[in-house]
């Protein structure tokens, strides 16, 4: 475990010394502060608007960090050939993948914590009391980003930075749509024959939709922002099951990334 932590700490150090991170964080903080004005302009309750907007900003910034920093972490090592001396040390390659991953998670956690602090300070400033449930929503944002980071690492283990970014973005978009697709599919199965004009789903399309659903996590599961902001109930074991669901995907993605990385030649 020790080498993994050493690599993680170095990856953390690398990222916090990177200018791109500060630009993203400053931008995020700016947007969260901007939510104060949105709260003023909106016809809805100030606290609701600020919470909704701030959580959306955190989610978006987490996504950008996961993609830009996550892909860069491994790709930079390969392109600059710093990986040659590192992998020549007496450690298996999966230590490298896991270390890099944990390092980036530390960065994501730190940034989310910082944004949460700003967000809560703004809530306190307007006289609202931050609810504990908000932390659950932020935790699930973090988990979603942890999945996206694992996907970014997986793609960057065998692809170019641009392609990796596109693939990762693809996972994010498909992950938010796959649940809807499956819902549409079951709707068409149930009521399609009774409603004229309903498109016909071929067996191939159905298999494709199911393949996407099972290989890409349903990221809408991690979005409880609306429920938290509007104080709607959350299932008793929802957070636990969603966490296990997320961890399973992270495990699978990192396993594939490690296996792939293990096979790879470093010229």
């Amino acid at each position, binding site marked *: 475990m*020790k*080498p993994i932590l*050493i*690599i993680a700490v*170095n990856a953390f*150090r*690398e990222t916090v*010394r*990177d200018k791109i991170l500060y630009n993203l964080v400053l931008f995020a903080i700016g947007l969260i502060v901007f939510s104060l004005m949105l709260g003023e302009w909106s016809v809805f309750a100030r606290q609701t608007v600020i919470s909704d907007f701030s959580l959306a900003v955190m989610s978006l910034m987490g996504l950008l960090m996961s993609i830009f920093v996550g892909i860069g972490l491994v790709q930079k090592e390969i392109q*600059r*050939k*710093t990986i*040659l*001396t*590192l*992998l*020549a*040390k*007496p*450690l*298996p390659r999966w230590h490298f993948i896991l270390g890099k991953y944990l390092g980036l998670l530390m960065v994501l956690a730190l940034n989310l914590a910082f944004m949460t602090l700003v967000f809560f300070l703004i809530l306190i400033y307007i006289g609202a009391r931050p609810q504990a449930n908000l932390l659950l929503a932020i935790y699930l944002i973090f988990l979603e980003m942890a999945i996206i980071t694992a996907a970014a690492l997986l793609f960057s283990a065998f692809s170019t930075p641009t392609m990796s970014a596109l693939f990762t973005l693809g996972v994010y978009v498909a992950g938010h749509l796959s649940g809807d697709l499956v819902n549409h599919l079951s709707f068409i199965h149930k009521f399609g024959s009774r409603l004229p004009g309903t498109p016909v789903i071929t067996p191939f399309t159905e298999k494709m939709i199911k393949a996407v659903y099972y290989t890409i996590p349903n990221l809408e599961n991690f979005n409880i922002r609306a429920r938290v902001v509007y104080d709607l109930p959350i299932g008793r074991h929802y957070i636990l099951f969603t966490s296990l669901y997320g961890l399973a995907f992270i495990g699978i993605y990192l396993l594939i990334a490690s296996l792939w990385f293990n*096979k790879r*030649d*470093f*010229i």
Partner: protein
Amino acid sequence: MIQVADLRKTYRIGFWRKSVEALRGVDLEVKEGDLYGFIGPNGAGKSTTIKILLGLLKAGSGRATILGLPAGTPRSRRDVGFLPEQPYFYDYLSGREFLRFYGQLSGLKWSELKVRVKEVSELVSLRPDALDRKLRTYSKGMLQRIGLAQALLSRPKLLILDEPMSGLDPLGRRDVRLLLQNLHSQGITVFYSSHVLGDVEAICTRLAMIVDGQIRRQGTVAQVLEGEAEHFHIVLTREIRADAIPKGAGQALDARSVACPDLESQRSLLQWAMAQGIGIESVSRNRHSLEDVLAVEVAKII
């Protein structure tokens, strides 16, 4: 220390995955206590062999072991220090942070690290103030030195260096040469690839010459030069094509120089040159150097 038998590697390059044979049955043996030079032209397979030994590349077929363990396994690298060709390091780290990071990965304890960082930086002549500067401010020579320092941190039994003198000025090269001799005298086995053939000839106890993915010669310097003890070096007044030289009249070393292995071939070449109206600038009797032998071996595959 290192044993390589019938090692082969084929790269697939380009969109059509065209295959290029980088290693075509390499056999090599580095014994304990060797200061072993690995020479050959660019693209001959030196770096490929080294990277297979360290597990950075997967061998196509064949066998390679380091310190008795299969090459490529993490355990086989436990007592090995490595410096790649033209090393790039984390430029956001200071020299000290960099050495501590690599030392920790090599399994050194924190208390031991402090002492080792000081020792190895002195060994490679890195000033203490340089250790506190970011690596992005280092010159090429300093990067090479700190690269050597990280390879030495864990007190390796075997040091594998890929072109450790590349990019260094003459003084830097001299420093590295002296350092290699110093490490060798301390009992560390050194295996290094180099283009600086004069240095290899001067300091190596044994060497291997690789050309076109195959070991053409190996042994002590005397063994490699055996049968090539003397030759005639003829410089012509104008350039000629290598294939224009009649058979048995020598091998072109470059566009104007020809190496003739004996008196008879020298005579043939002079007669041919006169018949072609080519003047002779000089004729000298030379002992073959590694450079000559390498040129002869390379000429065989052209």
